[in-house]
């Protein structure tokens, strides 16, 4: 199975440790969310994976996988048109015009980039990445300056790329609005990965159930103490990863589906016995 493995990654810039002993493995067909407050090292981690920071210590095993990504405020040559920029930056493209169409760039793609708005530049950046069809796609704040239509298109394409077995890494501040099912969420804090430790730090997960029946059913069978917040929401204190906790109830049929999303404050678990949102 295609994967990127990062082992003991440490990055020091100007004498300061930006990334500390990071160990993660990212698999093909997975969408990985990267979250953390400003200065937590998200962009540095992405830049390191993209090869812009080669002075790191540790290992990044990408084997022969091809990769490409957009970082905050993507830049283009202003005297070239959008299309010329794409041709300059990409050695090979596939379905280029399909993506130009999808992001509604057809009427502007031959205009000089210097005439583009920030949103158009962002759309051009997304077209550039998607059209390259690389194995690993990295997005740093991809929804910046995008309108709702373009956001939806981005989400659709990400879901499609996921089914095409790509490794997709997304760093964003607005995960709750993304509507993407993440297979893994990595939380960075002061240069360290703390996704699995978050529960230990906060010990609190909010579980939103599909309806009150599901909540009551779950409460009666759960061996953890649930604190009822309202008819469909409860809080639970966990010392184990939420996936492990929910898997146990999923296997015994107590919850039929569950999905973890994340906002800036805490993990949010949506669960229930039936519905469309199956894991």
């Amino acid at each position: 199975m295609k994967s990127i493995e990062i082992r003991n990654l440490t990055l020091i810039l100007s004498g300061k440790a930006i990334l500390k002993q990071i160990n993660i493995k990212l698999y093909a067909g997975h969408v990985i969310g990267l979250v953390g407050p400003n200065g937590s090292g998200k962009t540095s981690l992405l830049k390191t994976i993209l090869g812009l920071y080669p002075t790191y210590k540790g290992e990044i095993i990408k084997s022969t996988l091809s990769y490409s990504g957009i970082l905050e405020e993507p830049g283009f040559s202003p005297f070239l048109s959008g299309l010329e920029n794409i041709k300059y930056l990409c050695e090979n493209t596939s379905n280029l015009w399909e993506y130009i169409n999808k992001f509604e760039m057809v009427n502007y793609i031959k205009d000089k980039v210097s005439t583009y708005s920030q949103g158009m530049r962002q759309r051009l950046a997304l077209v550039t990445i998607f059209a390259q069809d690389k194995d690993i796609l990295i997005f740093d704040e991809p929804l910046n300056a995008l309108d709702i239509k373009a956001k939806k298109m981005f989400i659709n394409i990400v879901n499609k790329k996921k089914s095409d077995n790509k490794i997709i890494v997304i760093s964003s501040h607005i995960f709750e609005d993304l509507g993407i099912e993440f297979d893994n969420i990595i939380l960075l804090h002061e240069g360290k990965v703390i996704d699995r430790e978050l529960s230990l730090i906060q010990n609190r997960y909010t579980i939103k159930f599909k309806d009150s029946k599901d909540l009551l059913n779950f409460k009666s069978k759960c061996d953890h103490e649930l604190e009822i917040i309202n008819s469909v929401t409860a809080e639970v204190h966990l010392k184990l990863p939420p996936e492990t906790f929910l898997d146990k109830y999923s296997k015994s049929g107590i919850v039929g589906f569950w999905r973890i999303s994340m906002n800036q404050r805490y993990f949010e678990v949506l669960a229930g016995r039936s519905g469309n949102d199956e894991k």
Partner: protein
Amino acid sequence: MMKNEFIRLFKYPIVMIAAIFIVFVLLFFSINHKMNSTTQSIYFDHSIYYENVEDITEKITDLENDILELDTNDRYYEQIKKNLEENLSIYKLLYANSIEQENVAEIGGINDDSLNRITVLKGLSDFILSSVIVLIIIVIVLLFTRDFDTGVYKFLYGQNVPRIKIVRKKFCTLLLVILCFYILTLFVSLFILLPIQNDFDYVLIFISDLEPVLIDINIYLIYIILSVTFTIFSYMVLFFAISLLIRRTLSFLVVSAATLILIQVLLPLSKNDILLSFSYPFVFTLDIGVNLSLVMLTSIIKAILFIVLLAYGMIKFNKKNITT
């Protein structure tokens, strides 16, 4: 990808404007030069006078006697002896080749305002060299350093294409663009040179202090072109290496200007032969009395030094964090 670099480069209007401007100035310069030129009769920097080849044997004998009769206690003995020996070596060479005085000119003895192919080509070369240096800097900015100002570097170097490969293509593009432009200016120069007649056939230069050689004027003209080509290549390597080490446009421009001032202005002030031959194209250094062996040695050292600097720049750039 090199094709893409070309396309992108020529989308910047400044490249074409600069190239056309330089060619126009070149033509204007040639017309102006022709109008202000004079003819001259003194072709030797040393005191060499003879009516015909037969007179030379007499001159040789006289000089040999003069050297023998020199007062060894004279405080200028060494200097006078050296001058006489140099003259003697020139006479011997001229005699051995049976060359009449009007057919040979000594480099250093040719007045810059005279109208012959050497002076015109040297004047043109001076201008071509300065223009090409400016063009090299402009092209490096557009090809390489500007990517770091516009943010293009994030895409360009954030893919699984080795940096060295990208940079090598940029350097090859620079090389080709400058070469094409240089060939164009040489064609214009050829067009200017063809109608000009030479009034001598040979050029005399010193390989070492007492070793003069005669060079056919056409071969000497080729030397001038080779010398300028070598200098252009050296600057191209030097400035590209600087850009790899510095990256940011403004800093690159400042350091390039400082390097130019150091090489073209400050080093020649020293009047040291090695530093002089480091500063100017090698043929030009011969004009100011530096001998050929030293000039060639310095040129080889210069080439090695700049190529090593380029290799160092590439290695350094390959391992460097690219930060905003």
